[in-house]
């Protein structure tokens, strides 16, 4: 696989607790890579380090062969809680990053209109986030990131708070958008079905151990969630997750809080 984004020896500790013990990972261009693991195993911390929100202690990150660290529009994230600006309407939320980048109004309006059409939110362009359902808000969050045409899209359990039907629709939408845009995706989740449906490569993370297992899924997207070919893979992943849960390691969740000082 041609290296598009890679991490080498990425380490992160909070006090005496090592969350990321030296992660090595490679993402191919246009691929979807999933990180799965129990709550508190460090997968969200890893994603926040990749986004540049949390500084790494040691290691290197290369995007298209260039070192990256500080947050920027080349690596954008969709958060579990959508993180939309509640005082801006859908159009303004999606337009926000392009405006910050100084794009000409006519060009950015065209881009916003196009992405809103792709996520099916054009009729709600003037609605405030408080007027939308959870699924619609996540579609706005997805549109806000994709409109920037990022090199790397980071998804931090983006559908975890949604009901089963909305989650299934959002997974299909993500698969479609990924095919249309060709964006490289790093997805963090604890949903085994979700990784089988979306990911080309699945990495399993253990608490304090980093990546402990990896699977490759060769099937093309869009995939059928009821495809019996995934059943064996789901069983394998679940068995590994249960084995890791039984090894008695303490979660690092409480050490993952970011201080508010110096935003």
């Amino acid at each position, binding site marked *: 696989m041609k290296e598009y984004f890679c991490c080498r020896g990425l380490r992160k500790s909070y006090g005496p607790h090592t969350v990321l013990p030296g992660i090595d990972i490679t993402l191919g261009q246009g691929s979807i890579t999933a990180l799965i693991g129990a709550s508190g195993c460090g997968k969200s911390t890893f994603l*926040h380090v990749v*986004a*540049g*929100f949390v500084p790494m202690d040691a290691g290197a990150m290369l995007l298209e062969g260039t070192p990256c660290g500080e*947050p*920027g*529009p080349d*690596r*954008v*994230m969709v*958060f579990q*809680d959508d*993180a939309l*600006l*509640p*005082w801006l309407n859908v159009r303004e939320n999606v337009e*926000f*990053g392009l405006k*910050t*980048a100084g794009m000409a109004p006519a060009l950015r309006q065209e881009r916003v209109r196009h992405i809103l059409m792709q996520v099916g939110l054009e009729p709600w362009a003037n609605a*405030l*986030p*408080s007027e939308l359902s959870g699924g619609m808000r996540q579609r706005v969050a997805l549109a*806000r990131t994709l409109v*920037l045409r990022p090199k790397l899209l980071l998804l931090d359990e983006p559908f975890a708070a949604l009901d089963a039907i909305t989650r299934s629709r959002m997974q299909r939408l993500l698969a479609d958008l990924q095919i249309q845009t060709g964006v490289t995706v790093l997805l963090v989740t604890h949903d085994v079905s979700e990784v089988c449906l979306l990911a080309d490569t699945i990495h399993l993370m253990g608490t304090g151990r980093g990546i402990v297992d990896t699977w490759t899924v060769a099937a093309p997207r869009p995939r059928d969630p009821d495809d019996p070919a995934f059943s064996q893979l789901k069983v394998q992943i679940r068995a590994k997750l249960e084995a890791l849960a039984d090894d008695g390691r303490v979660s690092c969740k409480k050490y993952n809080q*970011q*201080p*508010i*000082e*110096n*935003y």
Partner: protein
Amino acid sequence: MPCGLILPIMSDGRGARILPWCLPLLLLALWWGATAFRLTPEWLLPSPAGVARTMFAYVAGNTSVPYGGRFWSDAAASLWRVACGFTLAAVPGLVLGLWSGRSATIARLLSFSINGVKSVPGISWLPLALIWLGVGFMTTVSLIALAGFFPIYFSAAAAAASVPQNLINAGRMLGLSRVKLFAKMILPWSMPQICAGLRVALGMSFAYLVLGELTGVPDGLGALIMDARMNGRVDVLLSGIVLIAVLGGICDGLLVRFLSRLPGVAR
């Protein structure tokens, strides 16, 4: 009809416009009843009609009669004091509040002192202000500023501290600098709580205005109330109270209208 049935009917449509006036009208009716049936002596509680006549004379009457036409100069003096005191409360209250909400170091530096001073009742500062600043403008303004500072400071600090970390992260990934992050994310996010703090502070400004003006200043609505008490004119005293309530309500309405145009308030 029980309240449970009346209130939902009153809460929408034409009823919604009537609802705010129900309580004042009830109090007015009780007041009228108490005076009409002579439950209290006239010198202790004048009738609503008598107070209305006094108020009209105070607002629009001939300046040759006692208190006649004095309202506009009194209101101008009082509003100027409120404006100065409120501004002196709002500027440091907002700056220090937002700063301490975003920086644990500043919060630690200020918390002990501000919490200590906050516990001192405003009226305790009056004798000291009279000795240091004398009777008049400076004492009244300093009392208003001191009273208004705390609600503004605490609301701004709580609001700035409550900005979700993911919102800050979203701003950083969308390319905002530190200054723009503050102007476009932290400040708009904090606006609803800041607005509440400013409104509480404005209400307290009027309360402390009267306290400051009771100390012997020649003009202002507080001075009118003190003067009326000395002369035993309860009708003038009640007129002063009602007009302070009216002015306070108008100022609050103007503040809300101004704040509602700022980014972050409507959501």
